[in-house]
């Protein structure tokens, strides 16, 4: 933490960045995103197990962009997000400083996207055992059971769109759910519209989702959105050998193709 605070202070003092996007103490025992703009406030930065939000979400937010060049405190999923956003031309090399604090108080400063790529290639992304168990359970169900399972889940959706708001890859200024010519997603939260919304959210993130889990954590009714994301992540890996957030270049599963892609389901 000391390393992080020292670095943040130095960056702000030198005018190298205008804002440090990091974690600070929130209400109760929570950590929350803070935007440090004065060097003397650098000591408000914290980093511990409570710091889970993917802060890369703020990199594309206009209010934050207007503050000037940022430094971002990045967890592993946030590093992937940085690369994915770079691959989608949302951020540029040199346009930000990336700081990755370790649990042991160490700090890595990434100078280039290539350095992040190298780091990620050697880093493991463990999957929560409880979430894996839920995935295995749903996969083992019959199609009819799966249908009932998902209908049960999505009937609880209140269409608050917190899952979209929390997602660092959902940065479109105008989302399809706000389009009403035609109205792809009905406004009221009935089962049909909820189903359409959840399928659309998952599909629009196919090949782009970095599996940070923020959508699931943001959902006020606890719909396991990570399951939908991971089915697509798994299919993309097994069919196309691609993974979002591993390269700072366009390598998005649905914007590329291979002439020999599988077609055993096509007549």
């Amino acid at each position, binding site marked *: 933490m000391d390393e992080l605070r020292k670095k943040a202070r130095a960056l702000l003092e030198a005018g190298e960045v205008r804002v440090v996007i990091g974690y600070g103490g929130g209400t109760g025992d929570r950590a929350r995103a803070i935007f440090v703009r004065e060097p003397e406030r650098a000591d408000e930065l914290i980093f511990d197990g409570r710091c889970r939000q993917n802060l890369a979400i703020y990199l594309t937010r206009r209010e934050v962009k207007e503050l000037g060049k940022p430094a971002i405190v990045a967890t592993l999923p946030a590093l992937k997000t940085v690369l994915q956003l770079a691959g989608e031309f949302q951020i540029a090399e040199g346009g930000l400083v990336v700081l990755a604090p370790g649990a042991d108080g160490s700090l890595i400063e990434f100078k280039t996207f290539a350095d992040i790529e190298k780091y990620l290639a050697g880093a493991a992304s463990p999957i929560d055992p409880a979430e894996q168990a839920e995935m295995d359970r749903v996969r083992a169900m019959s199609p009819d059971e799966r249908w*009932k*399972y998902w209908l049960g889940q999505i009937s609880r959706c209140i269409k608050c769109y917190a899952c979209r708001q929390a997602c660092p890859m959902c940065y479109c200024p105008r989302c399809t759910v706000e389009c009403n010519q035609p109205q792809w997603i009905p406004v009221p939260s009935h089962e049909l519209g909820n189903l359409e919304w959840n399928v659309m959210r998952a599909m629009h993130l196919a090949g782009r989702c970095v599996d940070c889990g923020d959508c699931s954590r943001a959902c006020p009714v606890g719909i396991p959105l990570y*399951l939908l994301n991971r089915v*697509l992540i798994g299919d993309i890996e097994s069919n196309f050998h691609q993974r979002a957030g591993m390269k700072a270049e366009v390598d998005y599963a649905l914007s590329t*193709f291979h002439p020999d*892609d599988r077609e055993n389901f096509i007549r």
Partner: protein
Amino acid sequence: MPEFEPRIVAFVCNWCTYAGADLTGTSRIKYSPNVEVIRFPCTGRIDFMLLLKAFAEGADGIIISGCHPNDCHYTSGNFHARRRWILFRGLLDFMGIDVERVQFSWVSAAEGAKWADVVNTTVEAVRKLGPYENFRKIDRAGAV
């Protein structure tokens, strides 16, 4: 009770399958009238949401058809579509949506007989599966 007549919606591309279906007609090949054909510029233009909308509007089965690989009028629309369908099928299946009711095919402008066959076999397969009740039963109170 009258026999169940499946309602099949076909999303086809303008350049190959639509022309192929036209050839089926001009060749006077008789095929199942259960299909409603909707023409698109390209398979790449067929948004996955249209499939959900078709089911929501009462389709029992869906056909998606376009140019064979390397024959796309826009060079690569069908290649992109193929990737999208690989992922979409997996997602639908995981959510318990009946992917057997969705038939994908490549039918060129010269394959009038193949089009008749694709339609006929899809209609018979869906006839066996029965009406798509799951989708019809979804609550849509307040739907616009």
